[in-house]
């Protein structure tokens, strides 16, 4: 299973009613092209170590809405303690999918520590995540993801993926920056929720 395969499974299992927090790097163009709907449903963060925490805050803010964190092994490893907070809070509407290729691939494929045997699913299970599983192919990812999205507990899925980055033509690459993404994401949440999040102050 390559990252593009895992992303395809996630996109097919979710809808435009769901919200996503993703890492940047090699994942971003894959997800931007395959995500459900041409809508601004994804906050892509340039902050390794804060993807799951941000998804947690979003899930706690919107307990009626499904939130999916599109994580990477490099990001999870940068702030490993965050999984303990996830396990204690265990919001039922949050699913974390860690795409674990054992590499910092987009900066030249230096190995991450998962390539030396660190087991993120076992760590999550040890932290107390009741639904922490490792998956190695599209079928098992689809099965576990469907169970998590329909379930009543936090889901923590570690998808072991092979190296390999998709090459997207220039017109299909994501060209927005982190500030534009923030505004677009907030406006989309406002549209979904039917209420104002940012703004409302007088202009004069």
């Amino acid at each position, binding site marked *: 299973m390559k990252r593009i395969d895992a992303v395809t499974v996630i996109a097919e299992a979710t809808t435009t009613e769901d919200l996503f927090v993703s890492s940047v790097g090699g994942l971003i163009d894959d997800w931007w092209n395959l995500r459900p709907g041409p809508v601004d449903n994804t*906050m892509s963060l340039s902050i390794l*170590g804060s993807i799951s*925490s941000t998804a947690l805050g979003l899930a*706690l803010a919107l307990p009626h809405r499904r939130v999916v964190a599109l994580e990477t092994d490099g990001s999870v490893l940068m702030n490993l*303690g965050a999984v303990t907070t996830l396990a204690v809070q265990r919001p039922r509407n949050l699913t974390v999918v860690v795409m674990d290729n054992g590499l910092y691939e987009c900066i030249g494929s230096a190995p991450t520590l998962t390539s030396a045997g660190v087991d993120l699913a076992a760590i999550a299970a040890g932290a107390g995540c009741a639904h922490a599983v490792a998956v190695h192919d599209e079928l098992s990812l689809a099965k576990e993801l469907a169970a998590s999205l329909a379930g009543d507990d936090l889901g923590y899925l570690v998808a072991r993926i092979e190296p390999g980055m998709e090459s997207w033509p220039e017109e299909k690459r994501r060209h927005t920056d982190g*500030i534009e993404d923030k505004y677009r994401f907030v406006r989309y949440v406002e549209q979904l*929720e039917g209420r104002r999040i940012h703004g409302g102050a007088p202009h004069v």
Partner: protein
Amino acid sequence: MHEQSVGTDRVPRYAQEFVNGLHEAAVTLVGTLPESHLKSVYVAIDRDPAIDLVRVSNEAELPGIVAGSYLGGRRALMIMENSGLRQACEPIARFSFAHQVPLVMVVSYRGDFGEANWWGHNHAQVMGPLLEALRIPMKIVDRVDDIKPMLRKAFDHAGASQWPVCLVMTGECTEGGAA
């Protein structure tokens, strides 16, 4: 129930005012790594059914939790010792400079004038220059009567500027303060 709340029946005035200020500012989520200067604040929040308390074990988790909550339209606050600014510095910098997500943070002023612990002085020495480097507006709050209006203003300022703000609690507004 927070373990710090065990055996603590009386909530000091500063802590009660803090919680009242959170209510007035419509804050319903607080993320924190507890410390000693604001001990009763954590107890009071934990006892308050209208506010959810998320305890972390590293301050670097807090910016993400508060930012995610903001993006979902729920008002959240992060509370930590001022040394936590250093631990959380990288995500704070990125949420502000790269994404312009407003984060409202309250820190205790470890190392303020009269600090008796040798290890606490570096917290104060670094805090001001660090906040300045991050371009984060800060206000020192040392009077209990200022807690509520400063919390309200902090959220107004952060929301309008789309940038973090920091309140630094000391004096009357800390455990064992004068009030």
